[in-house]
């Protein structure tokens, strides 16, 4: 604001220098990753490193796909993340509707349970969770991967806040017109919670797309249900010194999400920002 008074150009210039430098620090590693994935085994160990692959080769991508069924991992990861996000949205918003709009005995106690679990990180319950899945014969199955991710107390809390923020007159008018809870929920209130839903969807999707510990533990047996992050971490063990191959694998795993982000970044960032001001 001070730059209105004068000396605007030099200061703005300095600001851009800092911003561009910051952008290089954040983006440089990704570009370096692309370059590395195109280098040969000899070229990758060259010191000083060559700025561009010399010669460029696409073979590393083939080696990744030969070593591990990466397409299968991608389909697993995508399917799992989408299913989990969708179910989380449904479970959280329906439960939140009950907490915000329906009076029943013990409501506060039940909601208290949700708040209490907000403090329980999954990392802490991993041992009994694994035992439980083993008893249910769900180790190394899609259900085993999916089930523990379904309920999010953070999401339930966020959605309850969203419902509480809507005026009561809305549903009361609808009830007078003869609508039931289901119609009020789906047709009147839910569409109005879109910003909260979007925020929750972004968090839920990112969390399940990036999840590592639980998929690592529950899919340890085979590659059939393995997700991308776990597959990628295994790749490192196979190609210990071939960083070109590892980087090719890493690029394959981030390609879908980065493409999606490129088109939706405004919306993604707005959703994350929303959690900080409303959550």
């Amino acid at each position, binding site marked *: 604001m001070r730059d209105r008074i004068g000396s605007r150009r030099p200061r*703005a210039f300095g600001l851009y220098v800092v911003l561009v430098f910051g952008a290089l620090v954040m983006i440089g590693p990704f570009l*370096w990753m692309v370059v590395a994935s195109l280098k040969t085994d000899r070229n990758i160990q060259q010191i000083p490193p060559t700025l561009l692959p010399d010669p460029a080769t696409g073979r590393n991508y083939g080696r990744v796909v030969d070593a591990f069924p990466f397409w299968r991992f991608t389909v697993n990861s995508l399917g799992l993340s989408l299913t989990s996000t969708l179910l989380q949205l449904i479970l959280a918003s329906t439960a939140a509707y009950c907490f915000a709009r329906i009076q029943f005995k013990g409501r506060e106690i039940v909601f208290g349970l949700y708040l209490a679990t907000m403090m329980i990180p999954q990392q*802490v319950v991993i041992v*009994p969770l694994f035992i439980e899945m083993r008893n249910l014969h769900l180790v190394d199955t899609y259900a085993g991967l999916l089930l523990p991710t379904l309920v999010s107390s953070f999401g339930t809390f966020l959605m309850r806040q969203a419902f509480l923020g809507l005026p009561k007159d809305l549903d009361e008018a609808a009830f007078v017109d003869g609508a039931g809870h289901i119609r009020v929920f789906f047709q009147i209130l839910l569409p109005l919670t879109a910003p909260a839903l979007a925020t929750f969807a972004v968090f839920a999707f990112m969390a399940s797309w990036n999840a*590592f510990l639980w998929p690592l533990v529950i899919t340890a047996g085979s590659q059939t249900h393995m997700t991308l992050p776990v597959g990628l971490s295994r790749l490192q063990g196979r190609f210990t010194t071939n960083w070109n191959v*590892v980087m090719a694998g890493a690029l394959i795993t*981030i390609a879908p999400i980065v493409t999606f982000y490129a088109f939706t970044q405004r919306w993604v960032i707005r959703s994350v920002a929303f959690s900080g001001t409303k959550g």
Partner: protein
Amino acid sequence: MVGAKGWRKAGIISVFLAPSLVCLLAFSLGPMIATAWVSAHEWNLIRAPHFVGFGNYRELLHDEKFQRALTNTVYYLAGYLPLVMIGGLALALLLNKRVRFVGLFRALYFLPVVTSWVVVSLLWKWLLHPKDGVVNWALSMFGIHGPGWWTSRTWAIPSVILASVWKDLGFVMVILLAGLQAIPETLQEAALLDGATSLQRLRLVTLPLLTPSLFFVIIISLINGFQVFDQVWVMTGGGPAGSSTVVVEQIVKNTFSYGRAGYASAQSIVLFAVILIITAIQLRTQKRWVFYA
């Protein structure tokens, strides 16, 4: 009449609330209680569990590995939290000025957040490779002989911190930027009219009004930080020679490699207690420094 209405209400609750509540009990609350039960047993998950009472907890008191894991976790947080907060705040303040391409810069800084921890860990493991890594090569340009990073006992945790700060910077920036943009411009202008310097405005207007966002970020970072796992597992595997071990890594190894599920559960309970206490302290002290306008 009332009966029918009551039944309808019960019907709605069972359709709307039951699925979520069942999952909550089965996959979160139930396992939490089970953790406490398992922690009182010696159990390799193959033979029947054997009751040992507080034996596992007593053993924890003398377990050097676990103590190192706790110390390392605190060390990680002590490095990570200030760096990510100051860095994120600096970026947010820069982007809050009326600059061009704000959207572009914001999107670029946020990019590491959407990629996974495994990718970021592998990427930095390679950038920090002692021999072939670009970081040590760049250092050598300045005549500095770079450290062994993740292969070194001293530098393993700093390597993890570096990668984590880089990954989370964009997240902190976005949350703080949203907080900054919620500050009414009239307040800044009033301070400007009163002759406040930009440093005074930052200290007396911006930062106090930003405290709710700062609080949000700190609480989330602390809860996540105590559970740090992915980066450590991929970058150092807890090594070299156990020098960078962290609590969750101990839990995983005890359960799945050493056949000590009961002992791992005791560690889980301790971790949970630590997170609970830290969060409780945060919530208690927030009145003193968090300013809700």
